[in-house]
């Protein structure tokens, strides 16, 4: 208690102390421990009393009181305002009042300024320490990563997204036999190699565009010294904190030794040790690969060759000389043909083969054959003997789609056999007609029932398109035979035999059933957008008593709308008005199936009968259009076609032209008024999936899924 001179309790002083205590106990004071707050209230009130009453006036205690408040974190300016107010309300014995209040305020402010500066310094120092600590940690982690990067057993390189190499580790430099300077700034995209797996660069571009995070592959590179190194490559995308792609890191593991070993093993398995040429296994692998996914219109060539009289050489000069000769022949074949990109193989004994994986036509196959024979023409020096060697060759040059690997081998063997038979030292080109004859001589007909059992037949479909808008209105089912020895045979090669033997009846039934099932699937899926199905009806089928029952059953079992089926009857099957089979045709039409005359213009036609036949259309034989091609501009030919069209139209028949190969044909036929066209220009016979794709495409979609 402050007791002023005279010992009398000063009521104003008591009032001040009470107010002072209240002031310090609210606000911030509420959070201060009572054990701290009580002494603080007492001590500051005491200091202020001294400044208030002591003589002479000393501002020091008032300043200290202000400072003590700040020390106890009474830093709110509101506290100062209230304190000044209380001091002013406490009358001083002299005129020291303003000086006292000023001293208190100055003490408070000076302490606050000190405190503020101290705290700012402290917090900045803390920030600084934290930052240095973080930098130290970053540096330590960077040092660890750098050590790992530098000492890694795998090659590591960082590049920007444009592919410019920024930094590479020493392992990578060693792998590429290059210095860091050589590699810095090198662009990743320049590191192509002809043996890069397909798609690797597309994948790379997906990565740098941020569409994928990483990829792995085996990839060869050229070293700086020209050597090739094989690597297992892993490339990862590095993103920044905003997830934006920034860099790429490539990790390369040297797998050259493994690769070489693998290649070596593969080489041993696929090469002939005597000549070093690919062996029969390798040759077949490559040949079969051609048929995996042929491009449209892809052609290939195959030459089979054997040395004339090799057995005699072997017998007279010994096996060693024979082997030397084979080696020498292999060398010449290889150096003569391999540079053209063709594969030369030894199939066994004195039998060699050349595979042309790409060919533009028979003349290319012939050129290769001539070249091969040319390389073998100069005499061979074996020991001290000059040997003149001649060889016979069979040459097959075909569209890939026309055959299979085994059928092609069979064809080339047959052709080689012909070459030998016709006189040695020559090449012979595969002739499909002669092959077909050879094939039919194979007593094919006896195999047809077995082939039906084994499912060796299949159907391709060729589009029939409306000439006015090109829409595919129908497809013609064309039967194929995947003959186990002869490869894929077209109808020309076996239908005649089938007709002759009567086997056309079960075969025809099979064709009808499968074509109708396919047509029903399309109709089911595409409705009106599905094409009509045209199926050939052979003469013998037309006359078969069971025909109506067969077709009725097939339509029912396949659940096909009869209106979607059209039967094509060749002109030669045309029946006279009193033919009993005519009744069957009328019944078919009565069922809702339509009929059309096939190969029109090729046989004897009694045009008058057309009027009495229940047909709705006719197909002009392909020979008409194709002959126009052969003879160039032929106004007479066109007039004949025009005549047929107008005749058909006058009978109310629609007309389809076959053999349409060019846009000009189509244009001309359209002008003549022909309704539909069929031929290569509108599409070759294809697998049903391809037809499905065309339907989808025509409907505006691009989806191409499975067959059906």
């Amino acid at each position, binding site marked *: 208690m402050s007791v002023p001179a005279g010992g009398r309790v000063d009521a104003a002083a008591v009032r001040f102390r009470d107010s002072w205590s209240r002031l310090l106990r609210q*606000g*911030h004071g*509420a*959070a*201060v*421990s*009572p*054990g701290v707050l009580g002494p603080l209230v007492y001590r500051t009130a005491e200091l202020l009393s001294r400044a208030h009453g002591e003589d002479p006036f000393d501002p020091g205690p008032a300043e200290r009181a202000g400072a003590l408040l700040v020390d106890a*974190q009474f*830093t*709110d300016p509101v506290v100062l305002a209230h304190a000044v107010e209380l001091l002013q309300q406490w009358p001083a014995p002299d005129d020291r009042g303003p000086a006292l209040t000023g001293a208190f305020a100055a003490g408070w402010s000076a302490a606050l300024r000190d*405190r*503020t500066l101290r*705290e*700012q310094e*402290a*917090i900045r*120092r*803390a*920030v600084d*320490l*934290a*930052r240095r*600590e*973080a*930098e130290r940690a970053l540096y330590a982690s960077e040092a660890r990563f750098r050590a790992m990067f530098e000492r890694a057993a795998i090659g590591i390189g960082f590049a920007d997204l444009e592919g410019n190499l920024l930094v590479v580790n020493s392992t990578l430099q060693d792998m590429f036999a290059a210095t860091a300077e050589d590699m810095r700034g090198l662009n990743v995209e320049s590191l192509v190699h002809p043996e890069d797996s397909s798609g690797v660069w597309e994948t790379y571009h997906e990565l740098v565009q941020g569409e994928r995070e990483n990829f792995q592959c085996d990839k060869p590179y050229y070293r700086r010294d020209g050597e090739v190194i094989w690597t297992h490559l892993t490339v990862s995308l590095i993103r920044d*904190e905003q997830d934006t792609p920034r860099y790429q890191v490539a990790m390369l593991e040297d797998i050259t030794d493994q690769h070489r070993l693998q290649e070596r093993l593969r080489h041993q398995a696929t090469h002939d040790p005597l000549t070093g040429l690919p062996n029969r296994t390798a040759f077949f692998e490559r040949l079969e690969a051609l048929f995996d996914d042929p491009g449209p219109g892809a052609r290939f060539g195959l030459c089979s060759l054997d040395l004339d009289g090799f057995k005699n050489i072997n017998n007279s000069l010994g096996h060693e000389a024979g082997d030397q000769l084979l080696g020498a022949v292999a060398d010449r074949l290889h150096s003569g043909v391999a540079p053209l990109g063709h594969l030369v193989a030894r199939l066994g004994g004195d039998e060699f083969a050349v595979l042309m994986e790409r060919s533009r036509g028979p003349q290319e196959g012939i050129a290769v054959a001539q070249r091969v024979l040319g390389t073998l023409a100069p005499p061979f020096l074996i020991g001290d003997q000059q040997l003149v060697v001649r060889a016979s060759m069979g040459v097959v040059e075909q569209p890939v789609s026309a055959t299979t690997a085994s059928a092609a081998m069979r064809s080339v063997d047959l052709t080689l056999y012909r070459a030998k038979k016709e006189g040695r030292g020559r090449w012979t080109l595969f002739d499909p007609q002669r092959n077909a004859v050879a094939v039919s001589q194979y007593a094919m007909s006896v195999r047809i029932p077995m082939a039906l059992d084994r499912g060796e037949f299949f159907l391709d479909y060729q589009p029939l398109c409306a000439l006015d808008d090109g829409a595919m209105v129908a497809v013609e089912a064309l039967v194929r035979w995947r003959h186990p020895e002869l490869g894929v045979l077209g109808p020309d090669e076996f239908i005649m035999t089938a007709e002759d033997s009567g086997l056309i009846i079960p075969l025809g039934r099979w064709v009808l059933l499968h074509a109708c099932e396919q047509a029903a699937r399309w109709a089911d899926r595409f409705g009106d957008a599905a094409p009509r199905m045209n199926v050939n009806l052979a003469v013998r089928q037309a006359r078969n008593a069971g025909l109506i029952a067969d077709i009725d059953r097939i339509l029912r079992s396949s659940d096909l709308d009869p209106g979607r089926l059209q039967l094509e009857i060749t002109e030669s099957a045309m029946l006279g008005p009193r033919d009993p089979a005519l009744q069957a045709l009328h019944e078919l039409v009565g069922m809702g199936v339509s009929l059309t005359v096939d190969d029109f213009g090729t046989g004897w036609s009694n045009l008058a009968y057309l009027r009495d036949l229940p047909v709705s259309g006719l197909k002009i034989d392909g020979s008409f259009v194709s002959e126009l091609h052969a003879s160039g501009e032929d106004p007479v030919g066109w007039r004949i076609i025009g005549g047929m069209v107008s005749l058909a139209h006058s009978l109310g028949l629609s007309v389809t032209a076959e053999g349409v190969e060019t846009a000009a044909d189509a244009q001309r036929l359209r002008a003549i008024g022909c309704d539909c066209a069929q031929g290569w220009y509108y599409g070759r016979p294809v697998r049903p999936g391809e037809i499905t794709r065309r339907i989808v495409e025509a409907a505006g979609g691009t989806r191409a899924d499975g067959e059906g």
Partner: protein
Amino acid sequence: MTRRRWVPEGTDQDVPNVARVYDCYLGGSHNFAADRELAREAVEMWPDLPLIMRANRAFLRRAVQFLAGEGITRFLDIGSGLPTFGPVHEVARVVQPEARVVYVDIDPVAVQHSRLLVADDPLCAVVEADMRDPAGLLARPAVAELLRPREPVAALLLAVLHFVTDEEDPARIVRELSAALPAGSALALSHGSREGRPDVVEKHEDLYARASAPLTMRTREEIVALFEGFRLLEPGVVYLPEWRPQDPAAVGPHPELFSGLAGVGLKP
């Protein structure tokens, strides 16, 4: 509690830092312009905030001194921030002069600041750790050392769990920490609640979206549930000033305005 960034955590002075904003509310100067700006906006919207923060500090003091009075000498202050006003070791030593304190914070600036403060104190340690990884936190040498003698430890989670989002699962954090505490240990917890001032809570949360850690205020039920496995001491989970006030009259007529809820539990 933090966003991923390349600038060392907490050293970016342009991002309001929750520890430094808290210092602003308490009238300190351990802060930068961005912190003061956020504090100013928050106080403008919710003028009671400084009072609430002081009430939280007062709760800390009462809770620590109560537990020290119960014989606890080991304190683990998680989310200690800038312990400028009545740090735990000072408060505890009024009762237990040998009290040991380990301060834990995720903010490296707060950690460095605390280290400056207790640099010469052999009974104190400061650890930089993320409470969302309790196993990692407990494995820090100073923390492990505090727990080793298996004497009761007071775990302080004061005004920190509201910086843990629901996805980060605050209950899991408490559970995993609690599992490491010896029997007889205590948990003192305070937490921003959705009660009391529901009118400003969401706006306040929005404001903190730009700070170093976003805020998730919780309901009383959620806060009570955090004490699972502890025996809640009287008076249970209550508004900050209501927890064992030294002067019951000081509680005031509207404790709900303090909004923050607090409680202390003992591990059997």
